[in-house]
């Protein structure tokens, strides 16, 4: 019954993908049982035609005799999946006593070859050259937006068609880093383009699961650097690099770029784009398309859909967006907020700008004492990004992170799981899921997600987060081994001290704690480490003074990191102030850190075990942990 070649049936706002066996609503999968899928497919294949019940039953259950009630049930399930209520005949019309007809307008998309369109519409793409030493091509593409829209869509459909004969993605996905584009001349006014254009392409390709792409945070260090390809590839653990240059002259912009296979040193694609500055938005789509073509990647229909060019927006809004992205990478969060806000004011329908604004607000709150307002503004911005584009990956990831930090981890996890449905190889999503799981006490699952993230990208959150779940599981050696060596990141040095502390290597622990504090005395974790170091030196009074000071600062800011609060509670407990330990422990649990299995085995909390308040708090944590587990596992 099914179409062996694969195709798409589009009926607003749904798409039925016969290769993936997926029903999508606005690109979001809608769950269907296999029989419901078969029934819907048969209805779509015969849309507009009255199908008798017998005909339908023979098609859906070809080898068995079934009662008519089974068909009625399948029709009912389809209607529910489509959001159609009884009597509402928008999609399926019941013809009493006879059968059913699929009445809505259906478009049957039959893929065609890219050559058919590219030959007609676009100048030939430069053919791959074989060596880095080969002279640069002089061919320049002058694509119009309309042509690119058509080309990308049809190429996507074609790649999807090709996928029918080899459905499996490559066993080892390509790993790619897109390096900041380098300006060919001293041009401070347009310097922002180098990083932000690379970031735009990275974001665009984040949906492609057969490609593991390094995040923008990993490539920002290569701005303005002379690139040693083997060295950079080794640092980023990638087998493919995209490098490029740009030069702007008034309204004219020329970009040259090359895609390099690091191992063979072959250039997989090289191209140049001449375009008017106002058409800058089209560049990210063109480069993304060429990477997919150069790497011969297979795309699912969903990925093809995601890679469709963005609709045209006000060029000024796009420039503000790019400037905001660049400022964010330079850690200038207040100015990034201003730029991204301007972008959203000019173009309120551009989801990436809202996602970027959310990130900038969130970072501003965390690192620049933006306080509670910053988190609220971030949430509003993410809500708007997701309302415009429910599968906007950046918004999903960072909204989930924000929700976890705001004590709403139950809401974060489904967002991240949806992101993994789109791209199961996205390292940052796995890491954030591991982060969320450990808040909820799903420690083994958390460790597995973070390990997966590091397997996909050894550099993910390298100096900004740790595999805490190993520590929480009591596996101290694995935890210590997971930490980067030779780093000057105070957070990581604190965690090394924390691991040694748990192993009762007091001298090593004190050394690391003191170093972390020396490097970054404002970091909350470094201050907790310093307090523990004071306790080890029998200066409990000094430790308690530090901890009280931290508590009041957190209170003033109104922004709480519930996991970090737990560490303050631990330090209070170790320093002998049970009352404060229990107070902060309650705050930590109520603010969303309810890692119950960790709590009951945590040696730093041993002095609290007999306290009635401790028992009450453990009941609270256990209840939420159990509900989380029941709900989401």
């Amino acid at each position, binding site marked *: 019954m099914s179409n062996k070649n694969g195709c798409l049936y589009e009926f607003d706002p749904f798409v039925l993908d016969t290769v993936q066996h997926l029903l999508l609503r606005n690109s979001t999968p809608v769950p269907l049982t296999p029989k419901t899928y078969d029934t819907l497919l048969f209805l779509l294949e015969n849309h507009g035609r009255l199908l008798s019940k017998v005909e339908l039953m023979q098609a859906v259950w070809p080898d068995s005799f079934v009662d008519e009630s089974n068909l009625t049930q399948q029709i009912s399930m389809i209607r529910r999946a489509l959001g159609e209520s009884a009597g509402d005949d928008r999609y399926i019309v019941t013809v009493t006593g006879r059968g059913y007809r699929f009445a809505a307008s259906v478009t049957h998309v039959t893929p065609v070859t890219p050559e058919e369109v590219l030959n007609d519409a676009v100048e030939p793409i430069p053919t791959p050259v074989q060596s880095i030493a080969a002279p640069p091509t002089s061919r320049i593409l002058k694509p119009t937006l309309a042509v690119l829209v058509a080309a990308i869509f049809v190429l996507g459909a074609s790649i999807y068609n090709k996928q029918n004969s080899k459905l499996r993605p490559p066993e080892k996905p390509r790993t790619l880093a897109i390096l900041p584009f380098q300006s060919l001349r001293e041009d401070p006014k347009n310097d922002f383009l180098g990083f932000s254009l690379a970031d735009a392409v990275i974001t665009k390709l984040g949906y492609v699961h057969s490609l593991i792409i390094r995040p923008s945070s990993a490539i920002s260090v290569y701005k303005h650097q002379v690139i040693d390809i083997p060295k950079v590839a080794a640092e980023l653990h990638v087998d493919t690099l995209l490098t490029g240059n740009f030069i702007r002259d008034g309204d004219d912009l020329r970009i040259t770029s090359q895609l390099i296979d690091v191992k063979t040193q072959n250039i997989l694609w090289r191209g140049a784009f001449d375009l008017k500055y106002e058409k800058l938005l089209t560049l990210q789509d063109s480069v993304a398309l060429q990477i997919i073509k150069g790497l011969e990647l297979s795309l699912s229909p969903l990925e093809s859909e995601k890679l469709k060019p963005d609709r045209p927006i006000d060029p000024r809004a796009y420039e503000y967006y790019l400037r905001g992205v660049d400022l964010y990478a330079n850690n200038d969060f207040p100015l990034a907020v201003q730029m991204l806000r301007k972008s959203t004011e000019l173009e309120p329908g551009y989801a990436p700008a809202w996602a970027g604004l959310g990130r900038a607000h969130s970072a501003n709150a965390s690192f620049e004492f933006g306080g509670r307002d910053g988190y609220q503004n971030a949430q509003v911005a993410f809500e708007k990004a997701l309302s415009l584009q429910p599968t906007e990956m950046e918004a999903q990831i960072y909204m989930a992170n924000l929700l976890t930090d705001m004590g*709403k981890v139950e809401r974060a996890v489904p967002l991240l799981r949806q992101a993994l449905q789109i791209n199961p190889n996205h390292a940052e999503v796995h890491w954030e899921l591991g982060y969320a799981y450990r808040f909820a006490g799903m420690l083994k699952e958390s460790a597995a997600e973070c390990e997966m993230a590091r397997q996909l990208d050894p550099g993910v959150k390298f100096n900004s987060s740790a595999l805490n779940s190993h520590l929480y599981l009591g596996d101290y050696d694995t935890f210590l081994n997971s930490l980067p060596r030779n780093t000057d990141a105070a957070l990581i040095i604190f965690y090394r001290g924390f691991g040694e502390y748990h192993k009762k290597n007091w001298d090593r622990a004190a050394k690391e704690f003191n170093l972390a504090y020396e490097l970054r005395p404002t970091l909350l974790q470094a201050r907790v480490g310093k307090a523990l170091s004071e306790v080890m030196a029998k200066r409990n009074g000094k430790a308690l003074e530090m901890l009280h000071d931290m508590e009041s600062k957190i209170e003033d800011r109104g922004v709480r990191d519930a996991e970090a609060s737990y560490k303050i509670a631990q330090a209070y407990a170790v320093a002998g102030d049970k009352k404060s330990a229990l107070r902060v422990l309650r705050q930590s649990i109520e603010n969303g850190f309810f890692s119950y299995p960790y709590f009951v085995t945590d040696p730093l909390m041993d002095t609290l075990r007999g306290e009635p308040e401790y028992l009450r708090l453990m009941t609270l944590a256990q209840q939420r942990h159990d509900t989380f587990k029941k709900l989401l596992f």
Partner: protein
Amino acid sequence: MKSVSIKASANRTLGSASGQIQYAKDWDSPMTDAELDAFLGVCVNLPLPLPLS
């Protein structure tokens, strides 16, 4: 594309995949938990009900 609409206390009309965002001009405060759950339910098939946080 159809717009994703949530009937909410703040009378927000959330945006649409076609990019034609429509929302109340006073949408400058985050959604309540109930609104968020309804919204995420549309976005990600969030299992409901959720425990209060």
